[in-house]
């Protein structure tokens, strides 16, 4: 999954005739063309008119609104996902109940389903022409599709495995002895949860939450279906970039791309740092 893997110590192993330089050459050339070159080009393009030029593009009304919408929906998703992911992982590790293996399998579904298909699913369920969607709108006045709730639902669907799957292994390895000790000393189950179970989970929970946040910033396929492309209303950052590309506003597209890239990479570096701290 998205976890950054720690680099092992380099080891010398088998020798292949055309040598290490051959393999290294292939690998590095490949990465340069595929990864580094495109990244450099977009930064060059976006910073053509300096940081002030970039700032002007970002603070244009439609761009600013798209960026704010992206950030707050991602934040709401992260909070809900952390709570529900923690709860689901706890239930899966600690309780036995009929259908448990089933529940465990369903959690991985979002990883295998294309996000565009996820978007279609949500439209079929909550779309204004559908039974449930129409009912929610008439009875409660709730708009899900083409509105922020739809975005949040789509993001929750896509990122659900991230928190559950980072917490689960840690929870499974946790010793019960400390909980027993706390219980013997008369701690209530809530106190045990907060003081004994939660602290070791803080690190994996944070990294799972951060990864889902990073993933949410760039999500496009599900959101363009669920939220549509309405500027100043339901247009997120990724959809905004598409709009700027289509209307040939290179500066606008590059500026927003740079902001999204920087945010995502910062979060990934943060997770990496957390992992390193966790191992120490």
């Amino acid at each position: 999954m998205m976890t950054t893997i720690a680099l092992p110590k380099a080891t010398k192993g088998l020798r292949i005739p055309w040598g290490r330089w051959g393999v290294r050459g292939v690998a590095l050339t490949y990465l340069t063309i595929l990864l580094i070159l495109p990244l450099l080009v977009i930064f060059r393009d976006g910073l053509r008119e300096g940081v002030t030029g970039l700032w002007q593009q970002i603070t244009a009304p439609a761009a600013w609104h798209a960026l704010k919408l992206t950030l707050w929906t991602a934040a709401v998703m992260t909070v809900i996902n952390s709570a529900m992911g923690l709860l689901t992982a706890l239930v899966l590790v600690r309780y036995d109940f009929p259908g448990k293996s089933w529940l465990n399998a369903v959690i991985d579904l979002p990883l295998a389903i294309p996000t565009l298909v996820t978007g279609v699913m949500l439209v079929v369920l909550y779309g204004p022409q559908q039974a449930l969607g129409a009912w929610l709108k008439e009875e409660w006045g709730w708009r899900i599709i083409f509105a922020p709730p739809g975005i949040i639902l789509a993001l929750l669907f896509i990122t659900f495995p991230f928190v559950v799957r980072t917490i689960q292994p840690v929870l499974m390895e946790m010793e019960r002895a400390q909980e027993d000790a706390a219980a013997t000393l008369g701690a209530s189950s809530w106190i045990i949860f907060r003081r004994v179970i939660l602290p070791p989970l803080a690190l994996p929970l944070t990294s799972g939450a951060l990864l889902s946040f990073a993933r949410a910033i760039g999500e496009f396929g599900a959101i363009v279906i669920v939220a549509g492309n309405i500027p100043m209303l339901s247009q997120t950052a990724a959809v905004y970039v598409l709009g700027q590309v289509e209307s040939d506003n290179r500066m606008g597209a590059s500026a927003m791309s740079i902001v999204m890239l920087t945010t995502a990479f910062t979060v990934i570096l943060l997770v990496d740092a957390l992992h390193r701290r966790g191992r120490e």
Partner: protein
Amino acid sequence: MTTMVRTRPITRYHAWGRRLLIGVAVTYVAFLILAPLTALVAGAFQDGLGAVLNALSQPDVRQAFWLTLIIALITVVVHAVCGTAVAWVLVRHRFPGRRLLNGLIDMPFAVSAVVVGYMLLLLFGRQGLLAPILTRLDIQVAFALPGMILATLFVTLPFMTRELMPVLEAFGTQQEKAAATLGASGWQTFWRVTFPALRWGFIYGLTLTFARALGEFGAVLVIGGGVQGRTETATLFIYRALDERMVVGAYSAAVVLGLFSLLLVMGTDLLRRRETAGRGR
């Protein structure tokens, strides 16, 4: 003899508390994941099986799925070679910039698909950086198959490498050294000793790459343009069909695409689990 009963504090939550927690988790998953899934399948079959089959056998649908398949297959082949090489170099070699590279491998997980397509457009587009070279060589990358393959390669970059790295690391070099001592050549050692150990990581990496390639949308939309009959993949067809209110067509294609990637990933997972369990590991 009374044995010490092993207490499990959490189960000492009152029974209703336990039931409540399980109930909340199950309801959440049912509402978040299963309800939309069911709705999609029901939506596709709203006019019966005949309508689904009819929608799926339209020439533009078949062409779109065909293109998706071609792109996914090429992606898998390239990553089988280059992704393995990258994993190898990152685990076995030491060179300046190795840590930065290791961090960059994860970039595609977090970079928006639209941005990926746009970056390639900046490089290979009509006014792109490499445009002069491409016109001289008469190669079209943007709005054509090569660009869409590049986009898919970018998006799927981490899967192969990240599946292989831990396996390669755990395998170590002892057995290779033993093989070398016994007189095996480099390639012999790789194919007879190293590769069999990497096999499941390799297969799983390929499956994930393939499944992800099938579902790619944003990047191929931007770099390919989604021209019907030329650069329209399965996902782009679904997008257009929704726009044109061809509901059954869109839903059916979505079901097929979702089901296919699902079976692929879950099937390989099952096989791997059976294999590793069979060996008693």
